[in-house]
C-alpha cells in the first residue's frame, strides 16, 4: 500500500515512457506500440458501482496486463462519465495538452458526442489494434455511437439492449408493449416511475415513449429535425403528463438516479425497474438486493440497443499502454470472460464467429442467469438509438414541461 501511496505522491514518476504524442504512435507498428507501452500505467475512469465488474477489471484484466505487458491498470471508480468529460475539457481549457489525468474512459452517447465535438478524443488509430478485426464495423449500431460516427475515436466494449425487470411473484404477466405498459401504469396507480433525466437510464425510458409517440423510430432516424421534434414531443409530453398522477408519489417527484429506482423496486414500492444492461438484474439478484423471483422482459415494439466503448483522451500521457488495454479488452478471451454469467454477463461487442474455435465453444456453453433475458431474445425486437441531439432536446423538454 505504501508503495502505491508513494507512487501517487510522486505523480508523474509513473510515466516511464511518455506516449502523449498520438501521431508518433500512429506511425509505428503494433509491436513498437507494445514496446512503448511496457511498464506504463493506465488510469481507467469507469463507473465503479458494481463489485463484480470491478472484480473483472481488477482481476482478470489487470492481471493479464501485468503478466503479458507489464502494464499497471489503475481503475478509477466514478459515478458519472460526464464528470470526466468535463475534467478533460477543463484540462484543455487550462492548456494541459500532454499530461492529462485520464488515459481511458468507459463511455458512449452524449458524452462521446461532447468529447468528439470539443476535440477531446484521440482518433484515427483503432484499425492498428490487432483485435480490431473482430469488430463488425459494417454494423451501423457499432460504427455509430448514438448516431455519431465513431471515426476511429473509440473502441467497442459491450453491446446492450434495454430491458425491464419485474418480480414474477407479484406481476406474473408484465405488459407486452409500450401501449400496454402505459395502460398498466394508469390501472395501477403509484406502482411505476422512472428516473428524471439527465439520468442515463431515465433518459432512455423517455426515448422509448418518444418513439412510441412517433409511431415508430423510422421518422426519427437521421439528424435532429426541429419541426418533427415539436410534433412528436407535444404528443410525448401529453402521454407523460397523463400518466404522471398514476406514478409513484403521484409524480410529484421522480427518482434522481436509476439506483433509486432499483431501490424502490427492491422494496416493492414499484413493480418495474429497467436497465440498459440486463446483466445488472442478475448481478442484483446475486448480491441479494433483488428477489430471486426477478425476471426480465423486452417490449414487442422493441427496446433500444446500443454499444458502449472505451476512449483515449487527446491529452493522455499513456496512449500506447491505453491502446494495449483496449486491444486486450477486445480479445475473444476477455470478451468471453466477461460474458460468463458469474463474472458479469455482458454481451460481446465482437463477432463471435470471427473468434478462435475454443472461444466460440466457450460462448456457446454460457447459460444466462434466470433473471436475465437472453440477448438473442431481446434482439428479436430492437430499436435503433436516436442521435445525441434528439436526446438532449428530449431531456431539456422534459425538464421544462413534465418534471418541473
Amino acid at each position, binding site marked *: 500500500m505504501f508503495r502505491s501511496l508513494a507512487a501517487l505522491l510522486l505523480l508523474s514518476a509513473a510515466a516511464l515512457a511518455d506516449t502523449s504524442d498520438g501521431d508518433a504512435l500512429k506511425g509505428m507498428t503494433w509491436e513498437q506500440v507494445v514496446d512503448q507501452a511496457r511498464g506504463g500505467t493506465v488510469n481507467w475512469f469507469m463507473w465503479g458501482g458494481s463489485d463484480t465488474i470491478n472484480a473483472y477489471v481488477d482481476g482478470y484484466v489487470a492481471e493479464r496486463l501485468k503478466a503479458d505487458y507489464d502494464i499497471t491498470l489503475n481503475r478509477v471508480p466514478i459515478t*458519472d462519465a*460526464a*464528470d470526466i*468529460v*468535463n475534467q478533460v*475539457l477543463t484540462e484543455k*481549457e*487550462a*492548456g494541459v495538452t500532454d499530461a492529462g489525468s485520464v488515459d481511458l474512459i468507459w463511455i458512449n452517447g*452524449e*458524452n462521446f458526442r*461532447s468529447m468528439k465535438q*470539443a476535440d477531446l478524443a484521440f482518433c484515427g488509430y483503432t484499425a492498428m489494434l490487432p483485435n480490431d478485426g473482430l469488430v463488425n464495423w459494417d454494423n451501423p449500431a457499432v460504427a455509430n455511437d448514438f448516431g455519431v460516427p465513431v471515426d476511429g475515436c473509440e473502441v467497442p466494449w459491450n453491446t446492450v439492449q434495454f430491458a425491464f425487470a419485474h418480480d414474477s411473484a407479484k406481476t406474473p404477466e408484465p405488459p407486452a408493449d409500450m401501449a400496454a405498459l402505459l395502460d398498466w401504469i394508469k390501472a395501477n396507480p*403509484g406502482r411505476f416511475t422512472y428516473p*428524471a433525466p439527465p439520468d442515463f437510464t431515465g433518459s432512455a425510458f423517455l426515448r422509448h415513449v418518444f418513439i412510441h409517440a412517433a409511431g415508430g423510430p423510422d421518422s426519427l432516424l437521421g439528424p435532429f429535425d426541429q419541426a418533427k421534434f415539436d410534433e412528436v414531443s407535444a404528443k410525448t409530453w401529453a402521454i407523460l403528463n397523463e400518466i404522471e398522477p398514476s406514478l*409513484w*408519489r403521484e409524480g*410529484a*417527484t*421522480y*427518482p*434522481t438516479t436509476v439506483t*433509486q429506482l432499483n*431501490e*424502490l423496486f427492491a*422494496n*416493492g*414500492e414499484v413493480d418495474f425497474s429497467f436497465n440498459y444492461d440486463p446483466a445488472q438484474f442478475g448481478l442484483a439478484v446475486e448480491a441479494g438486493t433483488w428477489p430471486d423471483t426477478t425476471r426480465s422482459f423486452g417490449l414487442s415494439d422493441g427496446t433500444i440497443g446500443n454499444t458502449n466503448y472505451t476512449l483515449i483522451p487527446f491529452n493522455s500521457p499513456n496512449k500506447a499502454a491505453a491502446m494495449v488495454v483496449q486491444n486486450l479488452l477486445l480479445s475473444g478471451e476477455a470478451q468471453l470472460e466477461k460474458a460468463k454469467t458469474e463474472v458479469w454477463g455482458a454481451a460481446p461487442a465482437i463477432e463471435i464467429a470471427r473468434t478462435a474455435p475454443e472461444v466460440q465453444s466457450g460462448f456457446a456453453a454460457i447459460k444466462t442467469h434466470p433473471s436475465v433475458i437472453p440477448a438473442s431474445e431481446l434482439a428479436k425486437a430492437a430499436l435503433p438509438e436516436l442521435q445525441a441531439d434528439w436526446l438532449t432536446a428530449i431531456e431539456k423538454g422534459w*425538464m421544462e414541461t413534465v*418534471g*418541473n
Partner: protein
Amino acid sequence: MTDRSRIALMLAPALLVLGGLFLTGLGLTLLRSFRYMPALGLTEPDLAAYTAVLTAPGFLRSLGLSLWIATASTAIAALLAMAAALLLRQSFPGRALVSFLIQLNLTVPHIVGAIGMLYLVSQSGSFARLAKAAGLIAGPQDFPALTQDPWAIGIILLYVWKELPFITLILLANLQALGEDHEATARTLGATRWQAFAHVLLPLMLPGLMAASALVFAFAFGAYEVPLILGAHAPKALPVLAWQAANDTDLAARPEAMAMAVLIAGIGLVLLALYARAARSRHVD
C-alpha cells in the same frame, strides 16, 4: 528586528497559503463569472451569466430551498441545543453516556450521517418497516415521504442531528465559563426559574448561540453531499445545482456556475459579518 516585522514574518506563511489559495480562488471564480475566459476566446467581461442565472426559475427556486433548509435546520438545532445544554448542566442518570454520544456524533462525517438517515426514514426504511409491523401502514406508500420530499425534511433532520451536538458543546463551554453564580444570584434576589433563565442566562448564552448558529447556517446552506443523497429531483439545493452547471459539458453553462458560486459567496459574506459581530461581543476571536 522590530515587533512589526516579526509579526509580519509570523503571519506570512498563513497569509500566503490562504491568500494564494482562497483569495485567488475566489478572484478566479469572480473573473470567470463575468465570462472572462481568455482560453476560450472570451475577453469581454459582461454580466450575461448573472442575468441568465437570476432570470432562470430554477435558480430562484433552488435559492429558496437552500435558504429554507438552512433556516429551518439552524432554528431547530439551536432550540434543541439550548435545551440539551441546560439538561446537561444538571445531573441525571446516564449523563456521561449522553455527553459521549454528543461528542461521538461530532466526529461522524456528514455523508455517513446522510446515508444512515436515508436508511432510517425513507419510505422503505427502518421506521417504515416498524410501522408496517405495527400494522400502522399497509405499505411504503402510506409512510410519510421524508426523503426526496418537497420540504426537504430528511435533509433538515440530518442537519439537526449533526449540528445539535455542535451547538450544544459550544453553549456548554460558554455556560461553564460563566459559572452558576449569575443564575443563583438572580434566584436569591427573588427571580423565578423562568425569569432567571430569560433575563440572566439567555442573554449570556446568546452571543455563543449566534456565532454557532451562523456557522451552522453557512454549512447547511452550502453543503453539497447531504442534499445530493437526501434531496428531490427538483428543485435541487443550490450547491447541487451549481455543481451540476459546472459539470455541464456545454461550456456556456460554466460562467453560470461561477455566477452561482459568487452569489453563494455573497450570502456567506453576510454570515461572516454576523459571525464577526457575535464573536466580538463574545470576546473570542
